[in-house]
């Protein structure tokens, strides 16, 4: 599967972060919260009415909510189920 942004990613299937675009502030905040290129994540939920997305970090077990503008800048591809 080719990489696509998180807005277009399916729910609940394991993904691997390929790249994170955006300004320095946003990228650094995502890095420090534990979202790094190469990490395994899954989309755990989408808010209604163009609301935010819930990203589950599959190795750390943490959940992070990000707005749609930011989710659009995170590119991910399908990850191996076994990690």
């Amino acid at each position: 599967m080719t990489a696509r942004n998180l807005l277009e990613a399916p729910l609940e299937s394991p993904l691997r972060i390929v790249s994170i675009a955006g300004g320095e502030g946003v990228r650094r905040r995502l890095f420090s919260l534990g979202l790094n290129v190469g990490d395994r994540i899954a989309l755990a939920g989408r808010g209604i009415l163009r609301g935010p997305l819930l990203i589950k970090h599959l190795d750390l077990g943490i959940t992070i909510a990000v707005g749609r503008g930011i989710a659009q800048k995170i590119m991910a591809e399908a990850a191996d189920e076994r990690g």
Partner: protein
Amino acid sequence: MNAAESPVVIFVGQPNCGKSTLFNAIAGPKAQTSNFPGTTVKHTHSLVNIEGRMLNIIDLPGTYSLHPADPAEKVALTHLFSEKPDAVINVLDASILGRSLELTLELLEMDLPMVVALNMTDLAEKKGVSIDARALSERLGVPVIPTIAAHGRGVKELLDAVFDCLEAGCRGSRPRWSKSVEQAIETLIHSLPEDLPCVATPRFTAIQMIESGSLFCSDYMKDIAPEFHGRLEDIRSGLAAERDMPAYEVLAAERHHLAQKLFEETSRVTRRLRRGWGERLDDILLHPWLGYPVLVLVLVSFFFLIFKIGGPLETLLLKPFASLRLVLEARLDSGMLFHLADGVLQGIGGGVAIVLPYFLPLLVFMALLEDVGYLARAGFLLDTFMHRIGLHGKSVSPFILGFGCNVPAVVATRILESRRDRILTSLLIPFIPCSARTTIVLALVAYFLGPWWALGFYVFNILLVALLGRVLTCFFRASSPGLILEIPSLKAPALKNVLLKVYVQLKSFVRFAWPLLIGGSIVLGLIQSLHWDAVINSVLAPLVAGALGLPRELGVTLVFGFLRKELSLLMMLQALGVGYKDLLTVISREQMIVFTVFVSFFIPCLSTFAILWKEVGRRIAFLSAALSVTVAVMVSVLVRILL
């Protein structure tokens, strides 16, 4: 030994790592804890005596990194420098060790004596992660003590390690970066001007500069050492060209890999992550549709519970004070002595019988919401609506805290990254009905007109905040960076934490607010006996009687509402000269609603005004006051016309 002579020990850790709970276990009920990233936005000092040895311990706001990006992180970094700690206790969340260690690696570069508290080891075990503390200690070069702060486990061992560290020293081994990064660091260390005013080790300073560019010591670099600034930019761009990514990302990625490696070398994953009760509950709480009815149900049921507990309690407690007032009336004439005694009675009685019955349950429920971790979930659910008023979900937590008290809510805006979001949120917070205003709404509107009227008032209030946000956004157009919010795991509420929080807030009410209520009531008694109230009332009559249609005697009570909002309510009884139960004999239901609306919005109370001044500046504080008065007059007149 006093505070100045005692060793200073600073607690540093990422948000939600149990740092404040650990601090509380050592310091007693001083630090506030909650289950929301960035709650300890103020730092807390405490001088503790541990078996005859004194320690000056300081709890800093949780910080994900030492990069000074948002105001809360700046506080952490500034204090690490200014307090000159004798030792640092780095608290790690063992259940997310890989991420927690990234901050540890940054701290190790500061070369301060350090002890690591490997906290929440029980949660890590539940997640199937087993950590070898000894192996971790060997690699970091500092003592690593497993703790479970919520149960007080490991606290004694941690303190023993801290005392050993203070006596024998315990500086860790510095992280090993790749060759190119080490080279960049070394080159920069040798170029650092000798008179650099930034207080840190040259190595830490160099790393921060490569990572943060001009954010670190920016004033110095741009104004005083432009040549050095140029050299730094050369080093940063050289590193970026070599690795094909910005310099800050080179360091962030390497630190991430170092932390991951440490985690893999010292931990064993015994089984895959399992879904616990919290995750199953989250399926409902964070559900795109079910989440909203649950949110409304939680808030409405809290409202009714507070009213159902507070109402009967108020009726019960008012009786003895009403009888006492009759005795006073019979014994004393209506001279100065009566007015003063009446002032004391109204102040004390109002605090006990009218304020506390609603205030206490509200405190308990706010503490529960925070401790369980529901605030972040509300932030996720409401983000989309917050966008409609130009903000995002991270402002929800300060707003909800505002229902308790506006002062900590304004301080909590420090978790917002952009100044524009902070100002906008701070301007809206004074319109959130705090516990003082809830007391007025429940004691007047709900008590005399019924709880549905009071609930209607809240719905109206929230709509007003939304409308104001929409209007204010037109003046603050800069775009907001968007929501990035960690949703902490749900926790069963710890009774100890909830009680501690209620105790701290109650103590602050008894110490600061209640004397103000009693003092205000006495001053009103004095003013009445000297008949000065007539002067104030006639000055305010065009507004109070003319525009708002209220009894002109209420003018003086509005002036005092600036000190504490409940004071207006207590003084209302005093000014109208009736007992609480007979209130409807002197004012109508409509007047009661207009009075509540006006008092709720007309000006931020003194404490809120002061904290606005301190946090977002004098201009915004005055703007907030002007906005409140304008909105209060407009809305009250509108309500009067509509009723």
